[in-house]
Structures are given as C-alpha cells and as structure tokens.
C-alpha cells in the first residue's frame, strides 16, 4: 500500500503545491496519526507543554494565588546575583554531575566489556549483581545503616573496633562527608539502562571483525577495544551518554533520602532541591520555573556537547 501511494503521489506532486501534497499525504495516512495520537497527546501535555510553560512562567512572579506580573529577567537576575544558596546548589550540582556522569558511564562501559567474555550463565549472574542496585528502589537507604551515626553502623563499628576513631562519626550529618558519600551511593545505583545497552552492543559486534583485526595486526585486547569494538558500538555509546547525563542531574531524591532536606549546611544542596524548595514548598512558581529552565538548558547543552564529542570516535 505504502509503495503504491508513494509512487502515485510523486507523479502528482509536481502539479500540486507542497502544502496540498502534504495535506493529501496526511489524509491518506489517517491511521498513522490515529495510532500516534494517544501517546502524543499525553506526551505534549506532560513533557512538551511543561517546558514551554516553564519558560513563560520564568519571566513572571506567578505564585498560584495572585495574577502574575511580567518581570522579564528579574528571576534570573535574582538567581545569579542575590541567591547565594542557588550558587551553592549550582556548584554542587555541577560537581555531582561532572563526577557521577562520566564515572558511571565509564564504569558501565568497562564492566560491560569485561564481562562480555564470560560464559553466558556466569555473565547473566554478574550482570544481575551490577544491575540490581539500580532497580531495587530505596535499597540505597542501606547506606544510611552502613554509615549510621552511632556505633551500630557497620562503618563506625568497624573503625571503632580497630581503634581508628575514638567517637562515632556523624557521616551523613557532617558537611565534609555528605557530598562524597552521596556521590558514592549515586554511583552505586547508576549501572542502569546504559549498562544493559552496552552489554547488548558488545554482544552484537560480529566475531569475524575481531578475527579480521587479528589478521591485520591488532595486538591486544585494548587495541581491539579501541579500533574495533568502540567504533562498532557507537550508537550504543551515544544512547548511553544521553542516559548518563540525564541521570547524573537526577540524583536529588537519593540525596534527600540520605541527608534529609535541607542537607547539613546545604553541603549536598543541588539545583533539584532548590527547585523543590521554591516550587513544591514555597509555591513561588515563577522563580522555580526559572530554576527549571536553567536546569533544562544545562542538560540539553551537556548532551549536545557530548554528542559532538562522541561522533568523533573512530574517525
């Protein structure tokens, strides 16, 4: 059906304007739109529209009670010049994202690569061991038990027992430790969908490529990885990068669960928390929207940059 219609429309295309042709094609493919519609209506309502609405609201002082006033850039100016906690949050977010993003990405890739040569049975067990923390919900709260602030926490207990410390350390209440600990826990939960995608990508590299490589003088596994594997699985690398970046900006819930909100001295306060503070608690929707817009721009920017970088692999 589609072939026939395509042929027919290409002959009549010359006689019609582009607009008319498009309209005709659209009518012909009614079913396609019909099938796409339920998803797209919801998608526009809950994903596209919020972005537009946030941008619009970020220029106002909307607070859900009064008629909003147009402020133009005041919210942004306030964020960058008057809001010390925002600057702290931005800094923390960047540190958090710049560590968890790349580290979790590289770990996913390396581990996927290392387990690729295991037998199928062993491989699926190992995959589960690495993947499980990311799907097990709030199991990360166990870190709170491990690093509990009294001597019944495993870490304190062990350190006390060995005589390395004299008093129990208040791990998650100490501004010196919270950030580092949260990063470790975030990494612990971060081997998710990207990791699975890498495993699959590696399994899809045809073996004859490696054999051809060996004939062509690839000397060891590292060269093999660099010259054959990586270029071949570039689409997966791309997909994984997008997920890792998005994920690295979304660890707010873990931080809140572990350190409480607000965290001690705002030591682990991130933009996500700031957003929640103004949007979810103070109902300063205009200001919160400005925060959301900044977060949005940063994430899209990071993705665009990384995508450009990755497209150079193997060229």
């Amino acid at each position: 059906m589609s072939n026939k219609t395509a042929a027919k429309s290409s002959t009549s295309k010359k006689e019609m304007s582009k607009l008319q042709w498009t309209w005709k094609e659209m009518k012909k493919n009614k079913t396609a739109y019909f099938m796409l519609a339920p998803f797209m209506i919801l998608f526009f309502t809950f994903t596209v529209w919020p972005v537009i609405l946030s941008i619009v609201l970020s220029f106002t002082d909307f607070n859900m009670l009064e008629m909003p006033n147009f402020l133009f850039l005041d919210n942004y100016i306030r964020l960058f010049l008057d809001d010390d906690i925002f600057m702290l949050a931005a800094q923390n977010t960047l540190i958090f994202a710049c560590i968890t993003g790349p580290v979790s990405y590289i770990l996913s890739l390396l581990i996927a690569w290392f387990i690729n040569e295991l037998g199928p049975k062993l491989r699926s067990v190992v995959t589960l061991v690495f993947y499980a923390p990311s799907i097990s919900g709030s199991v990360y709260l166990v870190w709170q038990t491990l690093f509990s602030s009294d001597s019944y926490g495993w870490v304190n207990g062990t350190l006390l027992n060995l005589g390395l410390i004299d008093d129990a350390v208040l791990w998650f209440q100490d501004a010196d430790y919270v950030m580092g600990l949260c990063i470790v826990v975030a990494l612990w939960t971060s081997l998710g969908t990207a990791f699975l995608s890498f495993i699959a990508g590696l399994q899809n590299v045809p073996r004859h490529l490696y054999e051809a490589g060996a004939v062509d003088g690839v000397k060891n596994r590292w060269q093999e990885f660099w010259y054959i594997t990586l270029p071949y699985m570039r689409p997966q690398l791309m997909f994984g990068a997008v997920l890792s970046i998005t994920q690295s900006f979304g660890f707010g819930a873990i931080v809140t669960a572990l350190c409480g909100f607000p965290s001690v001295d705002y030591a682990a306060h991130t933009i996500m928390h700031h957003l929640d503070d103004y949007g979810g608690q103070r109902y300063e929707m205009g200001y919160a929207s400005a925060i959301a817009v900044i977060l949005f721009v940063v994430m899209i920017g990071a993705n665009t940059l990384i995508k450009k970088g990755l497209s150079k692999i193997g060229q």
Partner: protein
Amino acid sequence: MAKLRTRKHKVVLSRGAGGDFGINLFLVLMGTFMFLPMYYVIAQSLKPLDELWMFPPRFYVESPTLSNFGDLFTLMSENYVPFSRYIFNTVFISVTGTFGNLLLSSMAAYSLAKLVFPGRKFFFELVVKSLMFHQTVTAIANFLTMSNLRWLDTYYSIIIPAFCTSMGLYLMKQFMETGVSNEVLESARLDGASEFKTFWVIAMPMVKPAWLTLMIESFKGLWNAGSSIYIYSEQLKTFNYAINQIVTGGIARAGVGAAATVIMMIVPITVFIICQSNVIETMGSSGMKD
C-alpha cells in the same frame, strides 16, 4: 605484523595473562562493592534483635529468623492507613501504568517505525530530545496542569503521565525497525488486514522482547515511586513511601526496615531475572544515530 595465533584453524584473540588477572581482580572488587550492601540488607532483615544490637556489627547472621517480617506486618497494621493499602496503591499504579504505557507506546512506535507520513521525523526527534532532560524540569509546570485538571491527589496524577514515557517509545521504535520485517506486514495488508490489525496481530507478537523490556522499564519506575508532590492523602501514598518512613525511623526499627526493603527489592529483581535475555536482546537495537 604480529604472529597470528591460531588453534584448529581458528584465529585466537590475544589475551595477556596480566590483563586477564587485572580485569578479574577489578570485577571481583567492583562486584563486592555492588553486592555487599545488598547482602547487608538481607542479612539485617534476618537478624534477631540481639544480633542487631551487637557490637561490633557483623556481616553474617548466626541464627536467622523471619520475625522482622512478622513485626513489619504488625507495625504496619497498627498504622491508621493499613499496610495493605500501601501495597495495593503500589501494585495498582505499577500494573495500570505499565499496561497503559505498553499499549500507547507500542502503537505510537509502530506508527513511527513502520508507516510513512508527514511529521514522523519531527515527532521522533522530539521524543529523543526529551530523553535528554530529567523529569524534575517538568515537575513544576505539571503541578499546575494537574491542578487545572483537578487531578491533584488522585491516582490519575501518577498513572496517566506514566503512559507516555519517552524511553518506552524510543526502545520500542528502535526494536520494531529491525525486528519486524516489512515484507510480512506488506503481505498482511495485501490480505486485507487493517493497519491496526496488522499492528496487533502481526507486529506485536514479533516484538515480545521489546515489550518485556518496556514493561520492566516502566514497572521499575512506578514500583519505586516514592512520595510525590501531587499526592497529599496518606491513603494514596505508595509502599516505597511507607518504607522510607520506617527505614528512616532509626536503629529501633533497623530489622523491620531491612525486612521492608527486602520485600521492596525482591519484586523488580525477580522480574528482571525472568526477562533478562529479552531485555538484552532489545537493548541491542537501542543505539542512537547521530
């Protein structure tokens, strides 16, 4: 050129012993790091009270008991919202949300992957773009939308947005592109099947790995949904929320908290074990063209 290693006329890939050792060591260390906390939760949940209060804390259990699980149910039934209600909420949200997501995403994915019409590139591009930002960005505006729809504090506010995950559509569309052959669809159409029937009867059974993957992706998100800014009523809150309340209750509840966490994690892990090979198969086509 390096000397080519062959065994029984097959090329043997070069694997240095040092590298093997290093890699295995790395895997063992990382695996321990990943596994120990998981193991610790399970151990804690099986410890009787006196072992929980032992100093220094131990990683193994001397006399495992299920009493923590019993205590969990007693504790929760004393709550003014019964334990079963939290479980019902989570199960209800997870099942309906996942099912709706599966239906809507595969329908849209079929349309984007297998039908040619003006705008298909645009729609797909939009979905890919939306993978690039985290949902926190949309939370504020969605709060307003929910409020306008009068969906605040209802199941709708959680379930309906879960119907349209970009990840679900993306994975499904990528898999359909390679996993469903156009010839088969064409012959079904020639036999007079409607487009919807072709999708439902021919294409859907061919992408079983993808819908298992989509189900697990969607399910894990919903199952693990904690507190939400859209829900105020205690009666509508989820199991995960209730568990967080218990676990953060401190040492007095350490055993019960661990028991709750174990119940919470056992479900997605079991689902994953069952679907693992299908998930990996789907991920094979997850790559992103630049």
